[in-house]
């Protein structure tokens, strides 16, 4: 049967014309306002051209008119699922430029919040991409468990999504007295829930057929297109900034960098599931050992960076996030550039979606874990 269909498609008998379809900007599987101009022949994708800029908010331009503590909370609004990592990147960059050493306590708190944020982000990715592939139940499970992390955030820093918790020299408030107990309770609970996640989707034969062998990104292409994060690591590109350029409390702990081999949708899926387990391990190593001390350094009222250029990279839930600050010695930055992981990741989609069906394009986008404000900035 397959041979007959193959023959029919390749001969001109049932060949259709190529046509263009707009996927988005309001398509549910684009997770935001992304428009893909898809060139199709029948159901087969021939070309995918991303059109972005629908929520370009000019954060880099705005930053030029703001002071350093003010630009931090604009970074929340880029990749809102990795809000704290973005805050931390700017803070680390400023601290590095000013040559200040933050207290050990701050490093531990930041790393724990980082990993909680990564878990929350991966939970939302897990449930939303389940929904993209037609498994709606996953959505409710994921959001239910994410609520626990957001409650912990709310108790400690008042916000649930746009944390704005890191400030230059430390964190805004000390952790809540319940913080450690609640995090430990969450880890215990979530370790029991993770096998359920696997049972629901990873082992599901329909799900496996939709993802295994689909949308393969080779290691060479991942490097050439700058695809980082779990998406790049699933292709075998060892690019974990936490491992290669450790910051905050990452040098003190033992953890594995998960690297995959296949580079298909299923590998990207599995890698993020493994990363959730690894995040739990990281938090467990830190949560009981938070050193006593100040939660922030006393910084000057007006922060002025010395003249020069500073680059800081951190690992967000989506990949490598970079901050490039050019300072001319005034209280505003001369130029700020954010290297957002989603931007580089997005443009690899065209390369790997060719010759796949349009339903596979949805699977590819789901496992790429795109957040559009991160791309548009």
């Amino acid at each position, binding site marked *: 049967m397959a041979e007959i269909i193959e023959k029919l498609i390749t001969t001109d008998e049932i060949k259709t014309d190529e046509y263009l379809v707009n996927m988005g900007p309001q398509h549910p599987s684009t997770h935001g306002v992304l428009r893909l101009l898809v060139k199709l022949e029948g159901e087969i994708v021939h070309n995918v051209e991303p059109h*972005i800029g629908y929520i370009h908010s000019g954060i880099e331009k705005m930053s030029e*008119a703001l002071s350093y503590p003010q630009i931090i909370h604009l970074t929340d609004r880029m990749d809102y699922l990795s809000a704290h990592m973005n805050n931390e990147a700017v803070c680390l960059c400023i601290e590095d*430029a000013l040559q200040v050493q933050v207290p050990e306590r701050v490093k531990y708190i930041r790393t724990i919040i980082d990993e909680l944020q990564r878990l929350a982000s991966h939970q939302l990715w897990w449930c939303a991409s389940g929904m993209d592939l037609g498994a709606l139940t996953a959505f409710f499970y994921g959001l239910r468990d994410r609520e626990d992390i957001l409650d912990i955030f709310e108790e400690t820093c008042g916000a649930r999504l746009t944390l704005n918790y890191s400030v230059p020299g430390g964190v805004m408030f000390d952790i809540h007295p319940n913080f450690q107990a609640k995090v430990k309770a969450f880890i215990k609970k979530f370790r029991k829930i993770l096998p359920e996640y696997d049972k629901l989707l990873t082992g599901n034969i329909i799900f496996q057929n939709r993802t295994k062998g689909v949308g393969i990104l080779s290691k060479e292409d991942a490097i*050439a297109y700058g695809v980082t994060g779990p998406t790049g690591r699933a292709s075998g590109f060892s*690019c974990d900034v936490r491992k290669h350029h450790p910051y905050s409390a990452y040098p003190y702990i033992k953890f594995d960098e998960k690297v995959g081999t296949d580079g298909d949708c299923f590998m990207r899926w599995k890698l993020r599931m493994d990363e959730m387990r690894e995040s739990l391990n990281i938090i467990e190593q830190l949560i009981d050992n938070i050193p006593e001390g100040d939660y922030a350094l006393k910084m000057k009222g007006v922060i002025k960076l010395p003249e020069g250029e500073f680059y800081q990279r951190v690992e967000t839930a989506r990949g*490598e996030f970079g901050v490039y600050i050019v300072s001319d010695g005034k209280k505003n930055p001369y130029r700020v550039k954010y*290297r957002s992981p989603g931007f*580089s990741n997005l*443009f690899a989609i065209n390369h790997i979606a060719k010759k796949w069906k349009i339903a596979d394009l949805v699977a590819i986008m789901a496992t790429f874990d795109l957040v559009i404000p991160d791309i548009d900035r």
Partner: protein
Amino acid sequence: MTNEQLIEHLSAAFPDAVVKQGKQYPEITVSKEILHAFMKNLKSDTKLAFDYLVCESGVDYPAFIQVVYHIESTSLQHFLIVKCNTENRETAVLDTVMDIWPTAEFHEREIYDLLGITFNHHTDLRRLFLDDTWGHPLRKDFKDDIHVVER
């Protein structure tokens, strides 16, 4: 390679270029004439093997516009910053590096959109975020009475 070895190797290979140790990473400034050949060499030289373009950004200075490339080698784990200046702000033209690192195609489209630098030999140089009614917002002399409030 360590930073010192990297600087030594680059100064020997490119006597015209200015190599110095920056605050964090080695920095090299090349002229726009040799930019493409220099970048190609960075990738193909097995001792350097810079295969990963991390970030490409444009900075508007009073006399010229500068493009800054943050490049890393995934196999040898070293990091380099390459800078290249345009001749002046009016005729801002540089060669593309998209044939060396495909990711540069979109970084360069962003720079073209926001800073107005034209890249020679770029196959698809169109605006990325904004429509044609806009100027180039990241230039320092950009004026927009509606969206930008001057204090």
